[in-house]
């Protein structure tokens, strides 16, 4: 963390994150600001270190060991874990377990791509619907929230019920599909249930993003004769992009670690829906902690790579918001004096 930073002459130092729109910021990088940032950030980092770093490090550590197989003369399991280096990792990719790993890897990727895609589309629709002014809007918002509010374990049971062989799903569509048996139908069942559960997450985040778009921007567009689709394409989507990307990023991280839903809905050990998290669970359930940890670490790395690629390819501006700034830059200058006078008035009336 920054401890001391000498104050350079304004604009003289080409600091990495200097942005053209904010030259004045340079002048304010002071030790005080660094200290304040440290103060504001340290509790967060402390909590995360406690809860995640320790388990992560212990998983990496454990993944390098393996319990000695076999029983001693009295039929007891050996107490000793032997250091095996990267053997647990190598074994992930070899033979039968390699096949299972690849299958789970493919499933995880498939589920992530499909569910996140549908969630995003649906989430956007939900947000657009919620953002419209009409009678009963708050009722709609509440009902959109319902799927997200149902506990995952309960929703897994609910969907298992819906999809059982003589359940309501088959009754309604007049089919005899065995949703919970191995096969493509089980994949579809997982996708339907997952999208139902989590589209509201994207919907709500995007809605919040839409709510900070000034109404005037739309009015201006209307005057220019822009129709609904043009407004969507040239105002709404670009302006909610940062929020949307954050929502999609977090959904992706969650989807890549999907566990409960396929576990409860279809059942453990069904290859059609087995994900990497389920595989890690299964390994530790069979007391093979070394390889379970190896799975967890590999999954962690996979998630990290996906996140990096996502941020790199799509998310240039995940943490910034160039678009809105560009829009408001012009107006801001003008309005600053206005805002100041308004503020003064407010102070005065108090």
């Amino acid at each position, binding site marked *: 963390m920054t401890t001391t930073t000498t104050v350079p002459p304004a604009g003289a130092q080409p600091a990495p994150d200097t942005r053209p729109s904010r030259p004045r910021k340079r002048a304010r990088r002071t030790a005080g600001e660094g200290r304040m940032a440290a103060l504001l950030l340290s509790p967060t980092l402390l909590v995360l270190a406690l809860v995640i770093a320790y388990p992560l490090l212990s998983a990496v550590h454990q993944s390098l060991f393996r319990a000695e197989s076999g029983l001693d003369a009295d039929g007891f399991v050996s107490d000793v874990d032997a250091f095996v280096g990267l053997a647990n990792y190598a074994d992930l990719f070899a033979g039968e377990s390699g096949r299972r790993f690849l299958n789970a890897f493919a499933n995880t990727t498939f589920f992530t791509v499909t569910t996140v895609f549908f969630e995003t589309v649906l989430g956007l629709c939900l947000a657009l619907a919620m953002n419209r002014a009409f009678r009963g809007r708050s009722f709609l918002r509440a009902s959109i929230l319902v799927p997200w509010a149902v*506990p995952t374990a309960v929703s897994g049971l609910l969907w298992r019920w819906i999809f059982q062989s003589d359940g309501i799903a088959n009754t309604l569509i007049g089919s005899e599909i065995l949703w919970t048996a191995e096969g493509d139908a089980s994949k579809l069942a997982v996708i339907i249930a997952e999208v139902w559960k989590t589209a509201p997450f994207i919907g709500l985040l995007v809605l919040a993003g839409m709510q900070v778009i000034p109404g005037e921007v739309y009015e201006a567009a209307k005057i220019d004769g822009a129709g609904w689709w043009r407004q969507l394409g040239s105002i709404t989507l670009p302006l909610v992009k940062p929020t949307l990307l954050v929502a999609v990023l977090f959904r992706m991280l969650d989807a890549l670690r999907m566990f409960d839903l396929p576990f409860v809905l279809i059942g453990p050990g069904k290859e059609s829906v087995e994900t990497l998290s389920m595989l890690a669970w299964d390994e530790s359930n069979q007391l093979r902690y070394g390889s379970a940890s190896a799975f967890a670490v590999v999954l962690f790395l996979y998630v990290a790579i996906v996140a990096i690629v996502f941020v790199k390819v799509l998310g240039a501006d995940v943490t910034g918001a160039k678009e809105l700034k560009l829009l408001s830059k012009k107006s801001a200058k003008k309005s600053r004096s206005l805002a100041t006078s308004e503020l003064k008035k407010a102070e005065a009336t108090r």
Partner: protein
Amino acid sequence: MTISDLRNAATDSGAVAPDARTAVVRPQKPKAQRTWRSYSVYAGLALIFAYCLAPFYWMLVSSLRRTADIFDNTLLPAPFSLENYTKVFDGSTMFGQALLNSLIVAGTTTTFALVLGVSAAYAISRLDFRFKSVILGVIIATSMFPGISVVVPLLRLFTDIGWINTYQAMIVPNLSFAIPLAVWNLTTFMKALPFDLEEAAMIDGCTKWQAFRKVLLPLAAPGVFTTAILTFIHSWNEFIIALSMVNDPKIQTATVAISKFTGATEFQAPFGEQMAAGVIVTVPLVIMVLIFQRRIVEGLTAGASK
């Protein structure tokens, strides 16, 4: 003067004359086309509504059936029965206490996540210091480790420090997923808000703290509020940590209590009770959100005409 006035003043762009807002002339369209469009919009809304609520409806209907006809596929429970609801609150399950525990855990988690998240997001979006993206990277990296692999190390840790059967044993792990979402989401929000407003306020004599509290925070309210809903619900529904860290029924949360429901025998799932409990857990959440949403979001964004 309200925040929204301030905001309108700030965002009125040159393209719109001050009086244009009231004098907007909507492009005229043939009437038939407009009604057709509004019909299709309402049809779309109805579809969304149905998709979200139909499975929940099934949950509700199933919860109102008797155990004997729990497998029925009729669209209304016949006969109608509250048997499952009485069973949920049957003395031995302590479900009322479990609901209270869930409220404590989720409420505390949300409060901490918001306080920490807002400060971290403010630091990242408004202060100038190095390693910003390192920190953002570290924060989100914590959301990448599979949750089920965290349990055993944490159980060992919490046993060593005597945290078993405490609220903090659930709250602190919950924070690990709540904080990254809060920080990233709020950072995005704050970065999206023009710097100039606070600047203006400070020129006007406000301290940094006042500018933050009176200008930035209210503007970021939709983001703060949404983050609050999402983290609250996420920790309200957390299961595996709560199950592993707590074995005292006086401290256990609602999801754990649900997992302990038993059918008449070990082979019979107590489905009706589980669904009843699901309804009981979900409905207050939604009502609460409805109330808060009215008061917070609508109030603060009233000025921004949609």
